[in-house]
């Protein structure tokens, strides 16, 4: 390029203008930063805070979940009684063993959530009330007793969910409850219940720590 051409003769001021443009860009880049510092020094708007539910069980939650654990372990005890008897035909033993094992898992999971050590403590009053119903030798009677027990567990856990505050306890109970509801339908079916109302409806009364 001819440095003496009219166009190139403008170069004398170009460097200064380029530096000027650079400074302009730098100032532009700094402005938002300064503005954000000014904004950061403003007091926070305390009126927009929200409160999320706690994850861990509260003290009241822990008492309810411990009671739920006792109910689950009572169910284990009752199904153990049934599996020791002669009412369950061979083709249905896997179903009763599966349900029994599920209740044991529920008790263990609740114990783990609460940090409660062994030995487990079944709800004695529930075991006493239903032991004879689980000692029968007729599969339909046994299944009907099992369906009643599952419906009681569902009602108890549903009631509990209306009071549990901590998310961890609530989600665990929900994951237990939906399977116990399925258990009730299956056991009702084994008991000979073909009526949709019998399979679907649950009019069991929930247990409470006081009622035991």
């Amino acid at each position: 390029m001819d440095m003496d051409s009219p166009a190139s003769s403008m170069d004398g001021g170009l460097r200064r203008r380029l530096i000027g443009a650079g400074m302009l860009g730098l100032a532009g880049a700094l402005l938002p930063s300064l503005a954000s510092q000014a904004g950061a020094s403003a007091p926070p708007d305390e009126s927009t805070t929200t409160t999320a539910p706690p994850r861990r069980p509260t003290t009241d939650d822990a008492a309810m979940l411990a009671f739920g654990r006792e109910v689950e372990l009572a169910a284990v005890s009752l199904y153990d009684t049934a599996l020791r008897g002669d009412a369950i035909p061979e083709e249905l033993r896997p179903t009763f063993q599966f349900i029994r094992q599920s209740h044991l898992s529920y008790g263990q999971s609740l114990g783990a959530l609460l940090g409660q050590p062994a030995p487990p403590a079944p709800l004695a009053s529930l075991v006493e009330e239903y032991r004879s119903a689980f000692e029968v030798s007729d599969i339909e009677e046994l299944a009907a007793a099992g369906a009643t027990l599952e419906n009681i567990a569902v009602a108890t856990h549903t009631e509990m969910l209306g009071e549990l505050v901590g998310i961890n306890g609530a989600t665990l109970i929900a994951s237990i409850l939906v399977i116990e509801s399925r258990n009730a339908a299956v056991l009702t079916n084994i008991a000979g219940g073909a009526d949709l109302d019998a399979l679907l409806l649950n009019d069991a009364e929930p247990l409470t720590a006081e009622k035991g």
Partner: protein
Amino acid sequence: MNDLNNAELRRALRDMGATAQSDHRAMRTSLRALFDSDATADQRRAALVGRRRFLTIGGLSVATATVIAACGGTDSPGAARVGLAPTRTDLPDASPNDIVYLRTASSIEYSAIAVYDLVIGNTDLLAAELQDAAKRFRDDHVEHATIFEDLTKDLGGEAWTCGNPRIDRFLVAPVIGMIVGDEATDTPPSDDPQRDTAAFAHALENLAGETYQMFVGLLSEPALRKTTIQVGAAEVRHAAILAMAITGTPEGYVPPADAGEPPVFPVAYAIPSQFGSLSGQQLVVGAADELGVRRPISVDTPSNNTFVFEYMTPEC
């Protein structure tokens, strides 16, 4: 602290204003030199596209645009840009909350109702022995939808009285098309519509149960969780009854201890696991392709893209 920062800010603005004025003068001089001088056309072209001047003018333009954007008022928020661009449209507020979960719940009920409405009374699609159960389940879903609508209104929200848009579009419509055939997508009808309809109903009931179980961990109030899981407990009983009908008993009660190789059609179990699962399920419906392959469809619990947010309006 505020005063100090404001003072600094004012100084920076004043300095920048002075710099901008100086630069404006410099640019005007450059442009005049380029376009109003006695230079030849070749010289002007050289001045315009010459490397140094190109960089100078280009750098100046970018720097000026940056400052203009940074100094702009609040009428035009967002990143600086040079050139033409379409006006930005703000995204709607899409924060999931209790109202959103309840609207999603009622939407799932309406999607299920629509499917049952389609197959009730049609024994080509749903076996005669399942018709009574289907009618009962449909009525239950109507009742459940009302529960969720009332709860939505109690919280100050607008009740949702249509199917779930995403589930209807990406699950219900394609699956129904695979069962009855769809000329538009060149989908042949199923080789066993009754089998596939029962499997689809089972999948929808499981989906509803899993969704409400999931919502227990999302809803903020224990009372809402209780009502939602009450409905969920009813939905999984629907699923259990369908599983017993589909698979038979006692095979359909619980999964075997040694499951072995998974079959082409997933086996429906009344009690599929020890804990309620949120992992979704596989559904296989429709005719096999020319290679004899049947592709499974994932039926997953709703995520953000399936929630019925408050900005959404019903179109049914």
